């Protein structure tokens, strides 16, 4: 008798579980599951939304890898951007977080100032930076002129266009900084106290306590940074339109152009699937290496 009643309760709880989960499930099926599979199908077709998709097998992929220089160009641009912005963002994020963790008077005000730029985003920020980076009258070049330096046309020269966007991205480092700050505040004080007793100086404490304790946070941010780097769109769309000479034709912009300007939805879907595979491979590589450098509290292995 008691058994039956217990079962009834757990069944009831399970039913409630499904009820509460149902919006999530429906959302997952409609906005994730279906699109992923449909996009895979589309990637094997030629499709311009006006007539039905035409099956063409692997032709999209074959064209991409053998005859589309812009595919390689945009992929290269994106990898360049990721390779430059992720390490810089990590180093600056950690350093600023350490600075923000100092217990000095007025630190809350400084935290607000450093965090503020990461709150604003979108077209307005892209326009602001386009003006800051203006070759003749922008903030940066008029500042450099004070020292007799003639700055380049940041967004109009092939060499400087991508680094400029990395710089713009660094301005918003507050978003990652705040995550590192939370990580720093989670480091037990006793570790530092023990180290001080053992006679370890500030620098040693930094390398042997702070950094290892932050590695899980760094790990998380590196993955998010790499994935985010592949989505860079607004900057290029608003500030350069992908130029000069396709120097800022990033993968997401190229994909958008193919899909919604050229209406090559099949080809764009193939691009999306290649992006998905690259993102998955990069994430897996980072995860695989993590056992060597990410330190988890409470586990013996480093």
């Amino acid at each position, binding site marked *: 008798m008691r058994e039956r009643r217990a079962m009834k309760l757990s069944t009831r*709880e399970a039913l*409630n*579980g499904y*009820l*509460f*989960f149902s*919006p*999530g499930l*429906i*959302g*997952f099926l409609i906005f*994730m599951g*279906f*699109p*992923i599979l*449909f*996009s895979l199908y*589309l990637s094997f077709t030629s499709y311009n939304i006006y007539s039905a998709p035409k099956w063409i097998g692997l032709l999209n992929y074959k064209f991409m890898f053998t005859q589309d220089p812009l595919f390689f160009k945009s992929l290269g641009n994106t990898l360049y951007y990721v390779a430059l912005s992720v390490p810089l963002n990590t180093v600056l994020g950690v350093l600023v977080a350490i*600075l923000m963790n100092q217990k*000095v008077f007025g*630190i809350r005000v*400084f935290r607000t*100032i*450093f*965090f503020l*730029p990461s*709150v*604003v*985003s*979108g*077209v*307005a*920020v892209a*326009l*602001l930076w386009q*003006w*800051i980076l203006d070759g*003749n009258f922008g*903030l940066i070049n008029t500042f450099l*002129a*004070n020292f007799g330096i003639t700055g380049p046309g940041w967004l109009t020269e092939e060499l400087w266009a991508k680094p400029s966007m990395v710089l713009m991205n660094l301005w918003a480092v*507050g978003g990652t900084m*705040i995550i590192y700050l*939370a*990580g720093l505040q989670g480091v037990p004080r006793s570790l530092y106290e023990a180290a001080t007793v053992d006679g370890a100086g500030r620098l040693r404490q930094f390398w042997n306590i702070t950094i290892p304790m932050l590695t*899980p946070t760094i790990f998380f941010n590196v*993955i998010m940074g790499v994935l985010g780097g*592949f*989505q860079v*769109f*607004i900057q290029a*769309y*608003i500030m350069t339109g992908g130029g000069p000479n396709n120097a800022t034709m990033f993968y997401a912009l190229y994909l*958008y152009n193919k*899909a*919604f300007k050229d209406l090559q939805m099949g080809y*764009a879907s193939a691009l*999306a699937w290649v*992006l998905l595979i690259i*993102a998955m491979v990069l994430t897996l590589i980072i995860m695989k290496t993590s056992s060597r450098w990410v330190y988890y509290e409470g586990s013996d292995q480093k």
Partner: protein
Amino acid sequence: MALKSDTILHRIVVYALLLLGSAAFILPLVWLLSTSLKGDTGLFEIPPKWVPDPFHWDNYKKAVHSFPFLRYTWNTVLITVLCMIGSMLSSSFVAYAFARLRWPGRDAWFVVMLATMMLPGQVTMIPLFILFKELGWINTYLPLIVPFFFGSAFYIFLMRQFFMTIPKELSEAAKIDGCTELYTWWRIFMPLSKPALATLGIFTFTLVWNDFQGPLIYLNDTNKFTLMLGLRSFQQQYGTRWNVMMAASLLVMLPTLALFFSFQRYFIEGVTLTGVKG
């Protein structure tokens, strides 16, 4: 004594770095404000004047009049508010299933949900466009709003983390009193979760308010444009009128800035809540 001079030196270095760093981070915004108040000729002065003389407040008037600013503001507010309501309701609803209820498959679905956070949006973009086109939703706000009513992984995760901190005794006591799960969620968990809901609402606000690619894909009737699309078409028409453009940009940023200064702690709480560490 040696220790003392060491801390003083340390403090001096810290303050020097703090001042230098904040100058670098705040200058772009000061530049934005300064430019927005410059006259048409002051714009191209070298060296630039940080304090324009006189202040050209009319740039703001021009900005508001050079595109349907009020209409676009209304459109954007409408979309943003509906998305906020949708994501606060649905994400906390689904989160309740993950935080408080036991059902077969729960842990597997939780992993699947976390994995979807890593999916690049480009993969779903094209099929969703086709789906919404088939539904006749192009040029309406539905594609921008409806998905928010089905919960999104990050917000569900965020709410679940918060719900986990609510003592189990509370929901068990409610159960013994005969409350349904729906009642427990709405009358007990939701009121207790105001800080988390505020965080979620703010995140959704900044995401939707600043969204560009969504409206770009789905809206082509200029009457239905959002502020971001308005700024874009403004840029296409008056590309070099930086003073008016900066005035418009500042106006568009203003609600986000106001929200940040009024609810700063919720911006930061979101980070500690998700507890990315470990």
